């Protein structure tokens, strides 16, 4: 984590479902689980609300990475919204390379409201991964 902090911050956007992952991030905060500061969080009711276009738009408009986190399978506040999310976002992951974006810049996971430690781990690992990839340079990644 410290090596991440020393570098220039990256722009990372997280879409978190209100019931599980946003709560998990709250729990991590209440437990004072330290995390890198790059991530900015957008609250959505359900990960099923996340339109793959949001992710693409974010990446094309200047974000270096996007994280989507929802409820665990079978623990969705809205029955199975997270299954829709998974299906769509899996597809998105396969499409990203065609847009010239390394698919490691997008991560989809699940964290429940009680899993503060898991949230800390998720944020730390994803941030670390993006710092290894560096800032998103669209033209460069397209040509390569």
């Amino acid at each position, binding site marked *: 984590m410290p090596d991440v*902090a020393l570098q220039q*911050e990256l*722009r990372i*956007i997280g879409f978190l479902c*209100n*019931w*599980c992952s*946003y*709560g998990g*991030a*709250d729990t*991590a*905060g*209440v437990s*004072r*689980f*330290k*995390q*890198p*500061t790059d991530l*900015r*969080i*957008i*609250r*959505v*009711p*359900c990960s*099923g*609300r*996340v*339109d*793959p276009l*949001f992710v693409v*738009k*974010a990446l094309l*408009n*200047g*974000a270096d990475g996007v994280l989507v986190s929802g*409820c665990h399978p*079978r*623990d*969705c*506040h*809205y*029955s*199975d*919204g997270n299954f*829709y999310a998974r299906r*769509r976002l899996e597809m998105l992951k396969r499409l990203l390379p065609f847009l010239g974006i390394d698919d490691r810049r997008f991560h989809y996971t699940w964290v*429940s*409201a*009680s*899993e503060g430690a898991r949230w*800390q781990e998720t944020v730390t690992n994803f941030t670390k991964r993006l710092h290894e990839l560096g800032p998103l340079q669209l033209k460069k990644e397209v040509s390569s």
Partner: protein
Amino acid sequence: MRVGVFICHCGNNIAGTVDVAKVAEETRKIPGVAYATTYMYTCSEPGQEEIKEAIKREKLDRIVVAACSPRMHELTFRRTIEKAGLNRYFFEMANIREHVSWIGENRELNTKKAIEAVRMAVAKVMQNKPLYSSSFKINKRVLVIGGGVAGMQAALDCADGGLEVVLVEKSPSVGGMMARLDKTFPTVDCSICILGPKMVDVAQHEKIKLYAFSEIEDIKGYVGNYQIKIKKKATYVDWSKCTGCGACMEKCPSKNAYDAFNFGVAPTRAINIPFPQAIPKKAKIDPKYCRQFTKGKCGVCAKICPTKAINYEMVDEIVTEEVGAIIVATGYSLIDMEKLPEYGGGKYPDVISGIQYERLLNASGPTAGHIVRPSDHEEPKTIVFVSCAGSRDKSIGIPYCSNFCCMYIAKQAILTKDHIPDSQSYVFYMDIRSPGKGYDEFTRRAQEEYGVHYIRGRVSRIYPKGKKMVVRGADTLLGTQVEIEADLVVLGTAVVANSDAAHMAEKLHISYDTSGFYVESHPKLRPVETNTSGVFLAGACQGPKDIPASVGQGSAAASKVQALFSKDMLESDPAIARVNINTCVGCLKCVSTCPFQAIKDKELKDGRVVADVIETVCAGCGVCTSTCPCGAIQLQHFTDNQLLAEVNALCQM
């Protein structure tokens, strides 16, 4: 548009690691922001007053509060601005505490992050539209799932308050775990003597409809209007005719059926009434053991039954009930002793669990209250209790304390001495956890008055030696190993969630933790609510809990239901999906993806077919919005424009 932004210090919680003044200064530069200030505790009464005054003074029409999590105080501030005349949806929160000040160590980076969080909230609030709730009628009946002491308390409190109650219990009788106990700590009250009257009340209360030996099949609907499908499992006895005389049980030739009520301490008959005080006191057949089912011939009970209540052809039956709120009181289970092989429970008959010992102590139990060793029915003189059998053991996935074992072990040790005066009990413990009222005094009494030997340490292995069970463990205070040749070993087995807890949670749309216990809405301030409105928790389904706490929660849940039902109409959440009929092309993809069947097709006057949202059924997940190919169906308050405004606010920085 005039946005007002209030940045909270939250004492030192935010201001300690975020430069709030700098945040305010930067906020003032954002286009659309007319006013930005900081406040020590924005959620306090003067803090809220300040917001109201600023709205009037500065003519603000949109408000952002940068403070804690919206899961904490969004509702508080929505009410505040509503009082000042703004629509409550002209409000956003920027979470700069849980997501910023508490998790980042670098003040400069935290401040930057807080500024960006505010920027996003401002972008969003400027896109917000006024939304208005509509109201709908509620069904003032309540479903209570589980007829243990927590569920019964909840049911009785609701019924006494005039509500109609549907109580569903999966076993043949109400009473739950408490009905199996002999005495209760720390008063040594007879358990069934204090529980029995409650059970009778449940059976006789005109407002309570009891479904015993029944399970929840399906739950549809939303707060105020639930449709519940209940499966009445086949008992093969017509309960409308059964008088509970017990003649069938006496004559049943299949004498080796598993006795779930007694946790297998002794066998029961294939047709049985679980215990003398059972409510309802009706017989049921266990087809796994009944000769009529296993061998196709017998019919003894059918011949003997004076009211001709036996019906071998009976099948499960589904009934539907409509209610407006649900109290979940499904209780707990105990870890299977075979998961703790070093103790030999399940392998050696004289190693039993605490609940089994409870049945041996109980006057209405299989031994009529005489303590005997299961192996040879002799009276044990040396009894060893092992606490934390499975609890506090991360390596088997049970990191938590089971809450009440320390206390019931002290109780059982005391009762053992009462039953067998020349007996000696030993208790292996790690810590004695007795924080309740009168609890610690009770565990002291066990040692001081009843001479129970408490040994601070763990047991490593239990093995037979002749007729004895050798218990080998450590006394960490002595710093040595100790061995006890016991006649009987009682394991304080860990409390675990029911095996179907997750399945039930899915039906209820509530959350459960990694151990399978249900998650309350707030660990301190909303302990019986869940995140699903209309669903409440009581008892050990939320976590290991003793009787007083379970009863307290049962009453608390009942009062929550009473408060909910005190109005005739409920306000709906207006943050639901809306269809723009001008852009909808009628592909109806949304209809098939909606998890709640809340969208139907509708034919317009011009013959065009479009999607139509059933307002009361829509739960507001937004799956439809991300499914719609033309953006015609939009989840209010989380529309494409609103979310993209946040994305853009970030990316353009």
